[in-house]
């Protein structure tokens, strides 16, 4: 048996052992071809079937309506920070978009979009140190805006949106990089949903983009072909050589997710796992949760300790105990436990026990 830790990385992140073992067992021979999945053409029948099946899995698991297309795009969520404005700003003559600043990655999305048009931040969590999702004022929903952008789960902050704002006719765009396929979402509420794969659906290198079909075809002049949603849709996402291995791992992850009982079961399991940690945090004043109770994420649990010395000791001793990568994002500091779909409940229990024990010894 290979040595395995409990890996709380925020992404790339842990994968189910059964998936890793399957990859390992067929690494040198994909689909009986006598060649690895890494070595076959993205246009071979076998691989094109895999792409089609992956798309169908996403459609089925997320219940994506026929009004929306499912694309696979090079790069992760960051590439979409540019692709979204390039594709959507042209929907209205003002080339304007509305963003909600809920933390680090929302800020980066705003920064990148600002290269393409007029970007207005209509609400920000900055005043409360991003411990919650800010309230939107209905008057801020400027009807001339081409879209409204949200970050549905804030990986660095440990907060999430629990209800979607009503933006009327303005298409809603959701960066779901750290919570796609972790909970049920009514896809029809969104114009565009995007997410990189390396948190809940596989490994780094590709993003899933779900686009309402009437929003395609408005790309700004000067949009790179590989970021143009309509082009990708016409080409079945195979405009050029795709990151084949990344898509292959995504397909295995989706099959695994299906075997676990689909999205509803996954959502329940994620809530159960998160509760194990939040219960420890709420039991006393030793650990301090960053996120406001009503906005807590089930994916990234962020907290801090009474002082810097104990924080350092916590991280070092956790590591020694096989609890890996708990250091918080540099933007936030403290501790962050990322517990995506593939994190087993046993890993979360181990962390909860470690936290209890650490508090007892260092209280």
């Amino acid at each position, binding site marked *: 048996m*290979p*040595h*395995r*830790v409990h*890996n709380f*990385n*925020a*992404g*790339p*992140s842990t*994968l189910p052992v059964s998936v*890793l*073992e399957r*990859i*390992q067992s067929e*690494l*040198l*021979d994909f689909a*009986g*071809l*006598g*060649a690895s999945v*890494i*070595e*076959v*053409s993205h246009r*071979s029948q076998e691989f094109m079937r895999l792409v089609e099946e992956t798309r169908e899995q996403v459609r089925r698991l997320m219940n994506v309506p026929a009004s929306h297309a499912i694309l696979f795009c*090079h*790069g*992760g969520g*960051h*590439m979409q920070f*540019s692709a979204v404005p390039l594709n959507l700003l042209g929907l209205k003559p003002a080339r304007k978009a509305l963003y909600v600043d809920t933390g680090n990655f929302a800020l980066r999305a705003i*920064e*990148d979009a600002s*290269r*393409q048009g007029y970007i207005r931040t209509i609400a920000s969590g900055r005043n409360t140190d991003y411990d919650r999702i800010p309230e939107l004022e209905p008057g801020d929903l400027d009807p001339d805006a081409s879209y409204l952008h949200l970050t549905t789960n804030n990986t660095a902050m440990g907060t999430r949106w629990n209800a979607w704002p009503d933006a009327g006719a303005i298409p809603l765009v959701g960066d779901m990089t750290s919570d796609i396929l972790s909970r049920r979402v009514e896809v029809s509420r969104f114009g565009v949903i995007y997410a*990189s794969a390396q948190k809940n659906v596989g*490994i*780094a*290198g*590709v993003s899933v983009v779900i686009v309402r079909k009437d929003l395609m075809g408005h790309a700004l*002049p*000067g*949009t*790179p*072909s*590989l*970021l143009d949603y309509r082009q990708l849709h016409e080409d079945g996402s195979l*405009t*050029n*050589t*795709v*990151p*084949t*291995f*990344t898509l292959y*791992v995504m397909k295995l992850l989706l099959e695994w997710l299906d075997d676990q009982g689909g999205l509803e079961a996954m959502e329940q399991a994620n809530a159960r796992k998160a509760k194990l940690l939040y219960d420890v945090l709420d039991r006393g004043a030793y650990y301090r949760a960053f996120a406001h109770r009503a906005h807590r994420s089930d994916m990234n649990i962020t907290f801090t300790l009474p002082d810097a010395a104990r924080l350092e000791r916590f991280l070092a001793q956790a590591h020694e105990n096989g609890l*890996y*990568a708990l250091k918080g994002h540099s933007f936030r500091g403290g501790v962050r436990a990322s517990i995506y779909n593939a994190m087993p409940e046993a890993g979360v229990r181990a962390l909860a026990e470690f936290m209890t024990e650490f508090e007892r010894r260092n209280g």
Partner: protein
Amino acid sequence: MTERVFNFSAGPATLPLSVMERVRDELLDFGGLGASVMEISHLAPEFKAILAESERLIRELLAVPQGYQVLFCHGGAQMQFSAVPMNLLRLKPARKAAYVVSGNFAGRAAAEAGRFGVVEVVATSQATGHDRIPEVDTRALDPGSSYLHITGNNTVMGTQWREYPQVSGMPLVVDATSELLSRPLDFSRIGVIYAGAQKNFGPPGVAVVIVRDDLLGHGLPNTPKLLDYARLATDHSLGSTANTFSIYVTWLMLQWIRDQGGMPEMRARSEQRAKRVYEALDRHAGFYRPHAQPGHRSLMNATFRLASPELEDRFVRESEAQGLYGLKGHKVVGGIRASLYNAMPLEGAQALAEFMQDFARRNG
């Protein structure tokens, strides 16, 4: 397990068995971390070491001089079809670029650049079905052009520049997707050279871009951050989550290339492989109809037709039955294409040559 085939795919392409076995063996536990290399952060010291070591190996293997950046980008070479004009057109006020159209991908690169500025096709081999590298009079180039773009090896056509042109007054940009790290380079001629990894040095999902320092910082204002060379250089290619697995396999491939003897050895092997296949073609001239003119033949991709599509289908079918995989030509040229990149063993080229002779005898 099915026996390993000789895989002549044009890319993604075959990898050395020793590399694949190493990937397999450490798939669940990389370097004693207790996690797969796919599961660790791109900012973890272990991954940063892989990236830094990959860069160092590229510099060593290609003798990249000081004053060049080595960048790792998402999206393969085709993303560079956009990135190159976005980064370089503004070098001169006319926002114009010169392209040599020597085949399918060169044509796509030129068309994509047209989205961002003025493209002048300064030479094309279209009239002869791209069976050769067209002549370029580099002294006649418009000095107002920001750069000259060529495609070093034409994967679809099976043609290759013997030597890159010497250009003055503007940088030379080379799409070396299907030849980078198969032969030594003369950087005194090169401003930018780029390649998707999935042919000679890794799996798809990452492109290596080598850029001369003075060409950084001229990007169009709307250049996406992840395509902006200056930004990638500042961020050491880690401005976003990198394609960690592809870079890891690339790192293993670069070590393999070094251990085999580096560029001189890679070039010698590709000459030997190509010689086997072209000799078989020439021995049965008439039966096999090579696409490329003799002086322009690629060492990477050998392309040829047979008398009829039916015969070509039979060739593909029978070769596959003998463990020779991926020989069907690209849809633009049709016929047969044998891709003979770094990781193809000489025995593979030999087996193909023997099959070709046998097939010609039986069907000639």
